[in-house]
């Protein structure tokens, strides 16, 4: 019985999968396979393999079954109760359950992408070093140590044009060469996995789905720069990522891939996980280092840059998880190959977390330079509930909103900045006609104000003042001069803040004022919210011309405040209404105002 003949059952076990019951599904597969003696019946070994996230988290639990007869077949929304039937039909009787198969959009979702960094995610068992080695694992570091000088490794990365994937977009090769040029024989390497942007989770998925790939990326960087100790700074909110990475590190030590004289190659590298404690600002490099040292995570002025004086005063190089994820592919396939992907200024691929009011939320990896329209409509299936697209928010709380008119902007660092947004960590939050842009700005500002470390005044006090103004506007107490004040404040805060948090925090407001000024004006002058979103400005009544008498609002209402009979217009009983707005979201015709 040869290995490739075995039947493989791949079960998605990222955070999304586990919370939808992937563990139970796996247990059910193992139990039923054993009980029924399926191995003997089909004359082949059935391997149940847990994998990392494969992107389409909204459809979890995803199960792939690979058999010699049918090839790869994907089932979605699998529940533990269905496992017996799937085994019976698919594996024993060898007939694909067409009804339960993932719909064609799953293939569309997968085919429209280009997976480089995420090749391993969803294909291999993240806890198994052997599975990683089968996928050419640790080949890249071996190639570096055996046939390349550290300078050549840096040149290869420079040639690839790889830029920091954490948001800033600084050329990675340059960063490495700065740190290498710093004097001193003790240098630190840090992997920044403090992924705090709400709506972005690619770093988590990489750590959960392919932790060895990140370790190898760090080993290559350590060899090139001459670092002997590495930290991975992971958010405390990602317990599964911490657990899988810790397991991978332990195994690497056991098998001699970490520690002194790795594999007899003469390379020393130690690694440790450092857990964050819930502070967004710690994603900023100087704040992150302060946090590792055991202080409040507050940023400090640069220079000196970390490459010169970093952690505990030693030269330090910090890169994002996704950046390290790219490194091994660059070494394996060459810098020229990597540079051939993407656009003039942004090379390679980028992972985006597409969320919000889009049909298929999830992680997508596409070549840089793809149009935002293609990402939303071709890969992710367009807007949910057939509503009208309004804007997409790129780059999290530091980014900006991109309206429908410039949806053909390519996703690369420079085009997005030109459009008033930024790549950021790669979160794309899609908004439809029911999302109020003033409310979204208020939301982001509230987030950045809470997360400001409080060290410098423009950020600490300026953001608070801007937030007060925005709250006033959403409550219908806006004044005519407010828009100009917001713009003035925003520009001042951008110029005067110390670190990236303050310098980018006004972006969401400035970009929405730029593209959606009429919404601000409607709030201020007419005391109306055009998207029917801001509570204080709602009339709590049904628009009779728009109501199609469907009754969706009645079903959504938790307190029976909607009076509706079949074929009748809905009426909202203001006495009973608790103003939760469930009906506004349920109505597909914007018939409540």
């Amino acid at each position, binding site marked *: 019985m040869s290995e490739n003949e075995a039947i493989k059952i791949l079960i998605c076990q990222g955070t999304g999968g586990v919370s939808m019951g992937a563990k139970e599904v796996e247990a059910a597969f193992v139990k039923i396979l054993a009980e029924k003696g399926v191995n003997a019946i089909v004359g082949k070994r059935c391997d149940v393999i847990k994998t990392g996230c494969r992107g389409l988290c909204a459809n979890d639990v995803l199960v792939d079954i690979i058999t010699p007869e049918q090839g790869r077949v994907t089932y979605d929304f699998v529940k533990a109760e269905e496992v017996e039937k799937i085994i019976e039909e698919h594996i024993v009787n060898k007939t694909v359950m067409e009804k339960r198969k993932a719909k064609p959009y799953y293939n569309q979702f997968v085919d429209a992408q280009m997976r480089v960094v995420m090749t391993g995610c969803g294909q291999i068992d993240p806890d198994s070093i052997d599975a990683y080695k089968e996928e050419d694992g640790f080949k890249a570091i071996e190639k570096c140590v055996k046939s390349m000088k550290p300078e050549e490794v840096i040149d290869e990365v420079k040639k690839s044009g790889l830029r920091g994937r954490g948001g800033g977009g600084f050329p990675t090769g340059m960063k490495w060469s700065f740190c290498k040029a710093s004097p001193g024989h003790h240098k630190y390497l840090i992997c920044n996995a403090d992924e705090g942007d709400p709506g972005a989770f690619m770093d988590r998925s990489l750590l959960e789905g392919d932790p060895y790939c990140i370790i190898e990326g760090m080993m290559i960087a350590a060899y090139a720069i001459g670092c002997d100790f590495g930290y991975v700074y992971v958010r405390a*909110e990602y317990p599964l990522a911490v657990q899988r990475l810790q397991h991978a590190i332990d195994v690497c030590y056991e098998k001699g891939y970490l520690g002194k004289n790795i594999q007899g190659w003469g390379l020393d590298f130690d690694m440790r996980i450092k857990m964050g404690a819930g502070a967004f600002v710690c994603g900023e490099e100087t704040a992150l280092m302060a946090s590792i040292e055991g202080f409040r995570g507050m940023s400090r002025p640069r220079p000196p840059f970390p490459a010169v004086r970093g952690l505990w005063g030693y030269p330090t190089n910090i890169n994002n998880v996704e950046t390290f994820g790219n490194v091994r592919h660059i070494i394996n396939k060459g810098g020229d190959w990597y540079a051939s992907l993407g656009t003039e200024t942004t090379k390679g691929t980028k992972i985006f977390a597409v969320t919000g009011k889009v049909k298929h939320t999830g992680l997508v990896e596409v070549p840089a330079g793809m149009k935002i329209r293609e990402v939303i409509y071709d890969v992710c299936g367009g807007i949910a509930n057939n509503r009208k697209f309004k804007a997409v928010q790129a780059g999290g709380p530091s980014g900006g909103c991109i309206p429908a008119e410039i949806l053909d902007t390519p996703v690369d660092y420079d085009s997005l900045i030109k459009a008033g947004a930024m790549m950021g960590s790669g979160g794309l939050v899609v908004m439809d006609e029911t999302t109020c842009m003033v409310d979204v700005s208020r939301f982001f500002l509230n987030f950045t104000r809470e997360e400001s470390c409080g060290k410098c005044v423009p950020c600490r006090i300026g953001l608070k003042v801007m937030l007060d103004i925005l709250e006033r506007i959403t409550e219908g107490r806006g004044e005519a001069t407010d828009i100009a004040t917001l713009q003035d404040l925003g520009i001042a805060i951008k110029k005067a803040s110390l670190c990236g948090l303050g310098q980018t925090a006004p972006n969401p407001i400035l970009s929405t004022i730029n593209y959606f000024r009429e919404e601000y004006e409607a709030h201020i002058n007419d005391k109306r919210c055009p998207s029917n979103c801001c509570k204080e400005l709602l009339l709590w009544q049904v628009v009779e011309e728009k109501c199609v008498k469907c009754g969706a609002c009645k079903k959504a209402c938790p307190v029976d405040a909607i009076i509706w009979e079949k074929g009748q217009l809905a009426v909202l009983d203001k006495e009973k209404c608790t103003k939760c707005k469930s009906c506004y979201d349920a109505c597909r015709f914007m018939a409540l105002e």
Partner: protein
Amino acid sequence: MSEAVAQQAAEQEPVIDLSLANKIIDKFIDLPGNLMPVLQGAQDEYGYIPRVVADLIAERLNVYPSQIYGVLTFYAQFHLKPRGKFIIRVCVGTACHVQGAPRIVETFFDKIKIGHAETTPDLRYTFEKVACLGACGMAPLAMVNDSTYGAMTVQKVDEIISDYNQRPMK
């Protein structure tokens, strides 16, 4: 701290077993940058950082209590007061916000009569708003301890509360 306040604080704090904290300190004492791992360990052990434990850590790691207090109040993960048996977390990240997280938060406020980062007097519930749990595909999202509840509605809040109201405290 005035005497009366100190006495009041002493009355509120139950007896703390310091040997657990000492064990954690022993584990990390030689590690550079050990303050955060020690505090995280203590938090896991006690559920919060009692005053006496903070003082012990200050003494044994040779850092000022003021620095410890600074760290404890800076990071959202650390708590200075005992926490509830069931910790309710509602995600208010971007994706959840546009899908209606605010009404989920308000309904919880309404039902258990506590606000953000507060604990009910009977120590049954602690409520927290959190920014992004990383499962945006299931927005809006709520968590009670380790159980995740996706696609939340106001109705589901009722179900969750009545379920957890019946669970034993021990």
